[in-house]
């Protein structure tokens, strides 16, 4: 990226909107208000409602749904979801960071080729990529066949529907989302800074922690957000890889809206999840600002 022009010069062409400008902007604002803001407000209203015996929503105020969300059972599920998402994020960071850094240090031609190799899994449908792991981990799947062939195990073992499988699926799905933003930051780092650190006697660890990490922090932050937030609510991967063994918040929400038909409770879970998302972003934003 080129040096950004100063705010004043960048906005010099822009004029005060008057009525015409606001009218032109209206479709965009109306769309966002109707399909982003309004739905969230309706969700909030629903979360304070009750339901009748047929599962219909009754518009009478109650705190009951939130009491249930903060009961030990659901707090444990929420905690477990955050745990899985956090673990996924850390594993993606540890695996992905060296890759992003390595790609950023290549000649432009090689860099582009390696980047294409990251883009392909990035854009490949995550269901397909999750299914690939089902083929590998299933009882009659590839890994079991290989292990039996190698006489390491006698009987097929259940690899799918375990926490290990869930974590593998999540890491596999989100790894490219960690590599790409870190690459963008790493590419901007002047290689001579790292060499200077070495010349001044910094060991690899020291150079890493006091030069490389701070310089790539915006990318790390973006990657963490891109992995952590979606991973909390992802129900498809946990459904496919975990069976019903490890219920996470996403599965519970999905269940409330489909099978259990307790929309108000599902809405309350959704509202809590939204707050979690807002807090995560606000924290990241504050860190970013402090960094800048």
């Amino acid at each position: 990226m080129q040096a950004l022009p100063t705010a004043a010069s960048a906005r010099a062409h822009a004029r005060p909107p008057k009525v015409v400008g606001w009218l032109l902007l209206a479709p965009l604002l109306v769309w966002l208000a109707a399909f982003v803001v309004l739905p969230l407000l309706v969700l909030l209203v629903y979360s304070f409602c009750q339901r009748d015996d047929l599962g219909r929503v009754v518009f009478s105020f109650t705190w009951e749904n939130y009491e249930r969300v903060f009961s030990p059972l659901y707090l444990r599920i929420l905690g477990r979801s955050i745990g899985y998402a956090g673990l996924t994020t850390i594993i993606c960071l540890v695996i992905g960071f060296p890759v992003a850094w390595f790609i950023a240090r290549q000649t432009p031609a090689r860099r582009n080729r390696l980047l294409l190799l990251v883009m392909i899994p990035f854009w490949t449908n995550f269901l397909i990529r999750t299914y690939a792991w089902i083929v590998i981990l299933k009882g009659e799947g590839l890994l079991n066949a290989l292990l039996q062939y190698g006489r390491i195990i006698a009987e097929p073992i259940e690899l799918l529907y375990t926490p290990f499988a869930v974590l593998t699926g999540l890491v596999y799905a989100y790894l490219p989302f960690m590599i790409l933003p870190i690459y963008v930051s790493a590419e901007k780092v002047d290689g001579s800074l790292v060499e200077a650190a070495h010349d001044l006697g910094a060991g690899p660890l020291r150079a890493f922690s006091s030069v490389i990490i701070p310089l790539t922090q915006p990318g790390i932050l973006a990657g963490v957000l891109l992995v952590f937030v979606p991973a909390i609510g992802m129900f498809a991967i946990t459904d496919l890889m975990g069976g019903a063994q490890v219920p996470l918040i996403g599965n519970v929400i999905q269940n409330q809206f489909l099978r259990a038909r307790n929309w108000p409770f599902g809405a309350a879970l959704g509202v809590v999840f939204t707050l979690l998302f807002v807090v995560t972003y606000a924290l990241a934003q504050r860190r970013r600002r402090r960094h800048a």
Partner: protein
Amino acid sequence: MSTPSTSRSLLPSGLKLLQWGLGTWTALVFAFLYLPIGVLIFYSFNTSRLNIRWEGFTFHWYERLASNEPILRALQNSLIIATVTTLASVVLGTAGAWILYRYRFRFTGAIQTLVCLPMVMPEIVMGISLLVLFTVLTLPLGFTTVIIAHITFCFPFVLVAVQARLQGIDPALEEAALDLGATPFQAFWLVIVPALKPAILSGALMAFTLSLDELIVTFFTANAATRTLPLQVFGLAKTGLNPMLNALSAVFIVSTIAFVLFSEHLRRLARPSGAPHS
């Protein structure tokens, strides 16, 4: 931005070792990323039905796929939804980016945040909140609801892509057109839009792919008749191994590779002419 090649050849040996280690690690990670996909494609040509042992080469599963009614219908649904979504997203995104660029609105920052919200919001929250909205509005689930949902999370990507391109455009361009007698609309349509074309195209491509791939939001906003391809795949994958799904995956992967190569080509076209081609 560029790393001078001379500095690399003079690396101290410790750094060289580090480079070697990083290279090996990267190769391993690429193996991790690509082996499962490769396995999938490989087994899509296997004669055996539910066995992982290789028993012979066949196109059988592709033939089955090409004549599978539910999958074909889901594909058709997906294509219709993605096309309408892309067209609407391009209009909304391009116009929005241009208006936000041309006028100095009060609350521009807040508007920008609102635009970015659908891109970062957890999909499940978007899905259930739209579901309750449609219920309150008594709008039955179907093409309309899915398309509304898809436009909502797709158009911001077009808008942001166009915004990035607008940064590189000479602001005097529009003024010159206006001075030469063009109406503001003509200036936008005949001068600005052509200059934005690469960004619009790559934004459109992104919107199309996002719409085609989306599962979670669609899950809550579609009905049985508008099941999209990802929903169909999700249903099939839940039931376990299915060689037809291997074939479908292979088709998905090959089209993704084509898409990535094409958008890379677009990106190169979009690059300012002064930049070196690599």
